[in-house]
């Protein structure tokens, strides 16, 4: 396999990371909604933490996009 093909395969494999981040983000919002429906009064106060969790989970998925872009355009 030549180097160009390996790069493209690697970039494709990096898309797995995006799927994993989708699970993570879904988990963040799912858990929030689950507990927000149990105690709606406390839900509004936790919105900042919700978005911190979302940002942390999302960042790791975006990193996989960066890996793919580096493999295609830089490496």
């Amino acid at each position, binding site marked *: 396999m030549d180097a160009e093909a390996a790069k493209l395969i690697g970039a494709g494999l990096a898309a797995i990371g995006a799927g994993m981040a989708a699970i993570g983000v879904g988990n963040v919002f799912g858990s929030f909604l689950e507990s927000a429906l149990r105690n709606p009064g406390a839900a509004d106060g936790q919105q*900042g933490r919700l*978005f*911190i969790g*979302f*940002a942390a989970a*999302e*960042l790791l998925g*975006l*990193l996989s*996009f*960066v890996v793919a872009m580096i493999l295609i*355009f830089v490496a």
Partner: protein
Amino acid sequence: MAAEEGKVDPMHQFTIEPLMGSGGWELAGFNIAFTNSALWMAITTVLLTLFVAGGMKRELVPGRWQMMVESATGFIDDMLEANIGKEGRKYVPYIFSLFMFILFANLLGLLPIGIVGLHPFTFTSHFTVTGVLAIISFAIVLIVGFWKHGFHFFSLFVPHGTPLPMIPIIFPIELISFLVRPFSLALRLFVAMMAGHVLLKVLSSFVIDGTNAGPEFAALVGIPSFILMIGISALEILVAGIQAYVFALLTSLYINDAENLH
């Protein structure tokens, strides 16, 4: 944008090009061309200034415009008060400018003015721009931290109640997680905007190529892709808001670390 053999190049939209023949402008050996990126930053600044100036009439009974501006400042004010406390009020001008600048930039980049031949440019989809914004935030954290606490600021890297033998392990971990903050801050905004715009252009190539391939392809590929594109566009507007909010929120959390240590 349709280059060779009718293909849409999804990366072409991020090209930075000098405008109005300014490609040769130089200052001390550096090129200072007025690029499309600079143009859209200027447009964003002008629109933001107009937006805020329109709400500065200080009427006792606020009109719609003043209400809009006041709810935006109030939103940032509440966020800082909740995350930093009373001392957080003095950061409202910075966080408000940051939030509104990013929000306006993200939304202006999504404007559908391509149909009249103009090309909106999302400068937040460039790492250089988001990197500078993140460095400004990080510099404020460092300056406030060392100004207020001196070398006691380093206690940020040793959380309360850490057992003594754990300190050599915890300290480098906390230090590294502190030092990657500007990168994660800049990377998040840049990649989120770039990925969204690439996705839209890839879908647009499905619509164009699918419809050009004949009526059966148009029904099977073109129209479903077009409907999906409308949905993704709505999602992008949401992402534009969320990313601006997350940038402002994380900046305020980092400032909270500097302001109150742990």
